């Protein structure tokens, strides 16, 4: 049967279709119309509402614009940005965030998704981990402030244990590290859910067969189950990569990028320049630089899984 290799192969390389044996949907005009009816609506929405403003942003990055008057500025914004000492700091923080977010919430998410399978305690733990994802940023901000302030809950606990309080948010790099750990609380839940969807797509017969072949425990997981979850892993890592590079909310809520601009990420730098300083051009240039970084990182990661399968 030609079907035999399908699940394992498509899961490991979830590529767009290789040419099927009997080309069922050929490329007649009618088929093209059908295809555009499927792809069209989503593309139109994204194109008009998201891509068009991006074009506007790119154009603005070459101007000096304060919200009222606009002048052509050439590459001034980019040179101003790259010579600003704050930019390097902001870039460094952004990279710290993406490394931290790839390590903590993704790895923990996978571990929790796997370990919580099939036990009552596991179900409770899973609910506990998922709840924070459902909470709003406002709630999270207030709670984190409660936890991490100098007189907050974490230092209260340290105090009862006879330990010295820690300035969690007042100094760099401690504040950035603290916030990355704190973000794990909220970000892990979604990864658990996605990994669980992935686990569900693994056919139980595959596992049974592997067990018959003598695989078990870690070996069974890494050799058999994990490769079959590739489509989930790609989504989780892809999203974690993009989201961490765009980190904004938590930093804004906890330190507003401070003290000074020490804990700013690129998204915050962009926001401050655009909305607090009305330097739209400079903010747009930051946005463009950030967008290039995110697109490049995502492309490097995703291109392998998107490459058309050799026929």
């Amino acid at each position: 049967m030609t079907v035999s290799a399908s699940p394992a192969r498509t899961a490991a390389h979830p590529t767009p279709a290789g040419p099927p044996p009997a080309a069922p949907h050929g490329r007649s005009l009618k088929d093209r119309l059908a295809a555009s009816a499927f792809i069209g609506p989503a593309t139109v929405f994204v194109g008009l509402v998201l891509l068009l403003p991006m074009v506007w942003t790119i154009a603005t990055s070459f101007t000096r614009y304060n919200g009222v008057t606009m002048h052509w500025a050439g590459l001034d914004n980019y040179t101003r940005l790259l010579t600003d000492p704050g930019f390097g700091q902001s870039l460094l923080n952004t990279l710290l965030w993406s490394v931290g977010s790839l390590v903590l919430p993704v790895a923990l998410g996978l571990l929790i998704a796997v370990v919580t399978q099939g036990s009552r305690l596991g179900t409770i733990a899973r609910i506990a981990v998922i709840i924070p994802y459902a909470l709003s940023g406002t709630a999270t901000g207030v709670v984190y402030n409660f936890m991490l302030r100098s007189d907050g809950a974490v230092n209260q606990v340290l105090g009862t244990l006879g330990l010295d309080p820690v300035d969690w948010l007042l100094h760099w790099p401690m504040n950035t590290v603290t916030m990355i750990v704190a973000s794990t609380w909220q970000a892990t839940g979604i990864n658990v859910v996605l990994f669980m969807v992935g686990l569900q797509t693994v056919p139980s017969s595959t596992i049974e067969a592997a067990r018959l072949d003598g695989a078990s425990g870690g070996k069974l997981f890494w050799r058999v189950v994990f490769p079959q979850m590739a489509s989930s892993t790609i989504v989780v890592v892809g999203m974690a990569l993009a989201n961490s590079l765009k980190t904004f909310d938590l930093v804004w809520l906890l330190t507003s990028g401070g003290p000074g601009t020490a804990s700013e990420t690129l998204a915050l730098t962009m926001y401050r320049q655009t909305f607090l300083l009305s330097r739209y051009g400079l903010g747009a240039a930051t946005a463009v630089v950030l967008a290039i970084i995110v697109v490049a990182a995502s492309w490097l990661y995703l291109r392998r899984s998107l490459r058309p399968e050799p026929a």
Partner: protein
Amino acid sequence: MVSSTSPASSRRPASRWGDGPTLSRRSVLAAAALTPLAAALAACGGTSTLGESSSTRLAMMNDNAGWLAGYQSAGEALQKVTGYDFDVNSIANNYNQIVKMSIQTRKIADVVKWQSGYPLTELVRGGRLAELDDVWDQAVAQDRVDESLRPFVSVDSHVYGLPLYKSHFAFYYSKAAFERFGLHPPESYDDLIEIAKTLKGNGVTPFSAQYTAWQPMCWFEELLTKTDPEFYLALTSGQAAYTDPTLLDVLRRWSELMANDWFTALDLDVASACGPMLRDGTLGMVPYGTWNSGSFVANGVEPGEHFGLFNLPPITRGVEHTVIVESGVFTLPRQSPNHAAAMDVIGEWLAPSVQQPWSDYLQDSSANPNVPVRNPAVVELQEQLARTEATPLQRFYESSPPQLVQTVLSDVSAFMLAPSRYREAAEQMARHADEAWTDWNLA
């Protein structure tokens, strides 16, 4: 190889999905039921009022939803006089940005809350605000506004804003702590230091301070204006540099205060956390806007009973008494749908019958000097200001271009966490101030 078992496995997923949905089908139904219900409910809500004309309500935009009840009671009073009420739209985030963007369209409120000083100038530059010279002159003729506020609300000698309130920045002090140790509000800067020492010696934190957002301004402007008010005016108008020895002196004095460990943790949320601490006598003094009284009261902290207010005496001997004043304003966008009506109505905003409920709500002083304030702590402050003939100075926030204020305050916040490096901080401020002035003059 696992795939050797595939003939079965390739069909297994399908059947798993096939028999799985017994649970999820119910969820689909739940989701499907939710949607039209929500749609039906939401349809009852009516639609926006921005950009629509009305013969009974003026759309008003402001950045403080906490004041809704106050706007409503003032609006009711306004309606009795003019037939017009406020339809309040509160926008707590990105307010400045939203106003600047929407003022260029017709989707703008008839009355827009704004700040005085440089932020007002910035908005006027866009050319969309109505001049309020006649309204102002009439209010002055009716003795409804303090003429000394005029420069704060004018751009190029035309009035563009009508004062919304007249707040001060001053020191809240804990009645409990002061009474316990027999302390009185300071008559001089030396008194303040003595008070701080007494409090600290008795385990009470003398001062609050917060490093986030605009909060560094509270201490910055107090120390600056009380050291040298003339220099403050020169510095904020770009006539003096941030590397000036006077500013370095101010920062050094501040760093010395901090070296004494006289402050609360710098990440304390002053507005919400300090009220209870003043009430309980665990914190001595809080330099902050008098408009926060209402928030303290809402949390069970009462003026007169739990806290009083004083203005910091001059730090430098022989310098005149000054006080920081903040006055938000109402502005009238020319393109708003009910602009003509708004022009007719807004003059009555300062009428005593409208200002009394408003001032009672705010627990703060009205811009109409004939409206008595009922907050005993503010009364105490007003008496001190009258006794010392304190000259009003505009708040730092309104005294320089917005870009300068934002960047310099961010540098002040960095300074607060590394006070010994005040020289570097000052250089940083100077660099950012130059940038901001260049931007401001180019615009």
